[in-house]
């Protein structure tokens, strides 16, 4: 296992120390592993928290700051945080206008956030609303299963809901715009390599030199199918077709097109991917209102990429363009 770490069990704790040292605007509650805004709680502003297993950086801690999240809870690597953490975060950011919980749809995340909301209601009477993201079209949607995973849309949702909260909308309105983002966004990913959970010490799955996994999530889990390694052009088609046909996205639609790296893939390859994605979109008459290219929701050092499309209207676009100042996304300020 080749990682820039010390004891594999200390990765999360030490990374949070690094976050604290590197970002004077942010605070870290080390006991609860919560990263939060130095100016939290903001009286009258809806608080927004999220959280999940670590290993997806910059998600979520790197999105804490003005115009985005108020706090993020860091679980162990690939393991949902525990309810105590979400409860602590909820208390830290509750400025009286209620708190939105942004939850990625994984059994563990959903159950732990659920317990946290129950505890928050009981302990503080805080007004908590949860929004669950489930944008991964690689997973068959069904009421009989755990449903789709929450992946790339989470990043876009946190930005847009963050802007809505920052401009003073109330909890229901912020939750509504968050749900709209989730409803209009779709994602899919492909892995060229596995990743290694530090505490496990060896790769989660084995992949041949000429193979790739299509339809992976962000936890190093195998995907829907293993296929021969393909050129970027074919990979882009493989993941865009299911995305486009699912919503569906069609001619005349405007989107935020988000080409994401899974952690071990360098930017030069993401631009090659973006080129392919952009060609396919224009063939379908879908116009890119805003692009986002980079590694924003990762799976440790996994090589690969995911693509997220979010259908936007003027409201979502103006919220997207609103100022944001976080470690990972920053503009307008």
């Amino acid at each position, binding site marked *: 296992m080749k990682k820039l770490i010390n004891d594999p069990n200390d990765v999360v704790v030490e990374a949070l120390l690094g976050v604290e040292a590197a970002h004077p605007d942010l605070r870290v509650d080390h006991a609860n592993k919560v990263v939060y805004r130095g100016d939290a709680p903001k009286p009258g502003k809806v608080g927004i928290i999220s959280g999940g297993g670590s290993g997806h950086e910059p998600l979520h801690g790197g999105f804490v700051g003005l115009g985005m999240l108020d706090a993020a809870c860091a679980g162990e690597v690939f*393991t949902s945080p*525990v309810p105590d953490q979400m409860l602590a975060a909820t208390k830290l950011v509750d400025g009286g206008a209620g708190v939105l919980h942004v939850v990625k749809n994984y059994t563990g995340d959903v*159950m732990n956030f659920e317990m946290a909301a129950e505890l928050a209601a009981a302990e503080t009477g805080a007004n908590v609303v949860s929004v669950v993201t489930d944008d991964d079209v690689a997973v068959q949607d069904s009421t009989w299963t*755990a449903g789709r995973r929450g992946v790339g849309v989470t990043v876009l949702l946190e930005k847009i809901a963050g802007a809505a909260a920052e401009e003073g909308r109330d909890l229901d309105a912020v939750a509504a715009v968050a749900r709209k983002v989730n409803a209009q966004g779709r994602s899919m990913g492909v892995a060229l390599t596995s990743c290694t959970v530090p*505490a*496990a010490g060896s790769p989660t799955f084995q992949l041949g030199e000429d193979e790739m996994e299509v339809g992976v999530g962000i936890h190093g889990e*195998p995907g829907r199918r293993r296929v021969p390694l393909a050129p970027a052009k074919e990979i882009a088609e493989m993941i865009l077709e299911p995305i486009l046909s699912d919503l569906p996205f069609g001619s005349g639609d405007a989107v935020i097109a988000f080409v994401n790296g899974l952690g071990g893939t360098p930017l030069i390859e993401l631009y090659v991917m973006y080129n392919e994605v952009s060609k396919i979109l224009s063939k379908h008459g879908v116009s890119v209102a805003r692009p986002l290219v980079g590694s924003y929701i990762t799976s440790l050092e996994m090589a690969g990429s995911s693509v997220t499309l979010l259908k936007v209207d003027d409201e979502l676009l103006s919220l997207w363009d609103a100022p944001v100042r976080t470690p990972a996304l920053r503009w307008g300020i």
Partner: protein
Amino acid sequence: MTDDVTTVALDAWVRRFAELIAQERDHLTELDSAIGDADHGANLDRGMTAAVASLDDLGPAGAGPMLTKVGMTLVSTVGGASGPLYGTLFLRMGTVLGDVPSVSAEQLGAALRAGLDGVVARGKAQAEDKTMYDAFAPAVDAFEAGLKDGLGLADALGRARAAADEGRDATTPMLARKGRASYLGERSVGHQDPGATSVALLVAAAADTLR
């Protein structure tokens, strides 16, 4: 010797479970690598290490408070899917048992049943979803049936252990419909479920210690 389960025995159960989890940690993680995210062993080991420490802290206590403490510790330290599920399992057992120095075999059965119900309430799993339910439900059924058949505590737990092992093995051919393994669709078939494997250790630990 009566068939009552003392708090000393319950304490031994929890510690034995922690021991088995520590032993099987890598195996559980390996199973979770195949159809999950390679953390089930680490998750439960972290949680049960904390649970044992919490019992050390707690000192002498009644059956209910003891298991409630374990449940709360698991909720607060495990995370993932198994944290709320195992946490709820122990919390519900604690609630049913109350602050008493020992419980009967029947009371233990009621506690296990309440634990199982808690797992279902939390996770909404049904039979053959390929989860811990598929090993734990048959074990609880077998324990109750054993007592009804007039077996003593040890023998009823022996049947429960066999049923849990069988239920665990039966998860291998199942297609997962709950939890992370469900994302794999058909590819989840042919792998033993990690949670069913760990819950069989919980039952095995009971059979080892509650006598």
